[in-house]
């Protein structure tokens, strides 16, 4: 294995952050669509 684990950790933190942000935004939009 010839890995770069620091860069991997940073990339994973960014990706999980983006994913959680989009999931929450999607959920909020869904809620607003139901209330409309």
């Amino acid at each position, binding site marked *: 294995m010839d890995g770069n684990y620091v860069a*991997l950790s940073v990339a994973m933190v960014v990706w999980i952050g983006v994913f959680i942000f989009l999931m929450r935004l*999607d959920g909020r939009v869904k809620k607003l669509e139901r209330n409309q």
Partner: protein
Amino acid sequence: MWWKALLFIIMTAAIVAAFVTEAPQQQIGEASRIFYFHIPQAWISVLAFAMSMIYSIGYLRKRDILTDGRAADTAAIGLLVCILAAATGSIFAKVTWGSFWNWDPRESSIFLLLLIYGAYFALRGAVQDENRRATLSAVYSIFAFLTVPFLVFVLPRMVPSLHPSDSVVDENMKFVMGAEVWRILLTSLVGFSVLYLWMFNISGRIRKLSRARFEEI
């Protein structure tokens, strides 16, 4: 919901594989791993700008203001991803060429592209009347996209460049990547494409909601 879980798995797999496998180009070393993110970002920006042109044509045909909004949404995502592609390219340039920005033909062409789509949003911000704004920006978006193939695919190949040009295909258009590199790149491309579609879907729903609210008032 299942596709969101699948997207999470695909992107996570692409990220992990990009950093734990051997670097795709041994001569360049660790910095070449950025290739797995830089190429999908460049691809998504071209796709998003193409979608903006398609929605702009749709607006000019149907004169539906929501269609104009969709053209702006996808152009915004394209611009954001284009900035990311420029940033990842710039990091690669620092490691391999010694400075973040060298005005290499690739860097100049992406800079022009950022200016062109930055001007699209400046135009949208400058026109008050909704229909006039939609018409002007639809026409602009169509002409803006005509420059994309030239700036992304033609111009950087017309003049000598430091940018690796044979990392995907060689001069005879034959794939030069190993099977593992190809698999990781393909996984990343699929992940970024689904992520783009998800962002585009959310922005469209927000636009519909705000339009409905605006019409209520």
